[in-house]
């Protein structure tokens, strides 16, 4: 009587020489770490860094291309520019001149006469006024 494990291992025992060769090949790469393992780990690092998120890189590139294209397509017409003196129309020039004149009048005009001004007085003056009344 045998266990299934024994039967399975016995059935494929003929592959042992090939498996031994595979094992020695793999161990040979371990014995030269500066050449084989070092290089492979560096390549693995690079592939981890760049190859794995390939879809993410592609998505980011697409988004950037779309942003640049939109910017180029709408850049001239949409952005407001300050108007220069040469571009002002006569009506605009007149309105600006009126506005300047109005501001100048406001600055020059004195305070209205009917507005009461508060002048601080001593408290004794107030009592004298009450007594006189």
């Amino acid at each position, binding site marked *: *009587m*045998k266990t299934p494990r024994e039967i399975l291992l016995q059935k494929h025992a003929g592959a042992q020489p090939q*498996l031994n060769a595979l*094992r020695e090949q*793999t161990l040979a790469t*371990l014995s030269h770490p500066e050449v084989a393992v070092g290089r492979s780990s560096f390549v*693995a690092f690079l592939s981890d860094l760049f190859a794995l998120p390939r879809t993410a890189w592609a998505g980011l590139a697409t988004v950037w291309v779309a942003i640049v294209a939109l910017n180029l397509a709408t850049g001239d017409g949409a952005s407001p520019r300050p108007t220069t003196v040469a571009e002002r129309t006569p009506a605009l020039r007149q309105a600006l001149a009126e506005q300047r004149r109005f501001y100048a009048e406001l600055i020059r005009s004195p305070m209205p006469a009917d507005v009461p001004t508060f002048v601080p007085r001593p408290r004794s003056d107030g009592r004298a006024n009450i007594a006189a009344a």
Partner: protein
Amino acid sequence: MLAVDEAQQLPVAAARAGDAAAWDALFRRYQLPLYVYVVELLRNEQTALDVVQETFINATRYIGSLRDDAKFGSWLFSIAHQKCQQHWRKPRRDQPLPDDLGEEFMATEEVPDDLLIRAEQEEELMTLLNQLSEAHRAVLLLHFLEEFSLEEIATVTGVSIGTVKSRLHYAKKSMRALLEERTA
């Protein structure tokens, strides 16, 4: 238990430190069971040898990702299982893996583990293995070859423990039924 006791003595820590002798010991221990697992799944000897070699190379490269040294065996088999899945996807994209039988199936009856095969039944064991789907075969092989726990088999095959129970129960029940049928 095969896996648990032996795992204490495997030189995984030394292998992680880059000791070639430790790797040699580990590969010697697992090369044949790993090959049997892969070749029984893929049905192609040359491809199975390639997968074993890729598994060894990946193991030396990514040993740093192994957290529990006692799980080295199941970790190694999980690398090989992923390689097998890549091979399954390539030529037979139109044939999906068979569905599970449902987790309620496993609770109906217990099948004992002490399955011993007489000499005249050895060929029938292989015939039955061939009749099982890849998913059921994978679970049964992991159970037979390394006596992995349900949790370890679930980790290797990437399915839930309930699914592993279901598949294992179905596979063992089928095997027992076939063996009893032939002896009756």
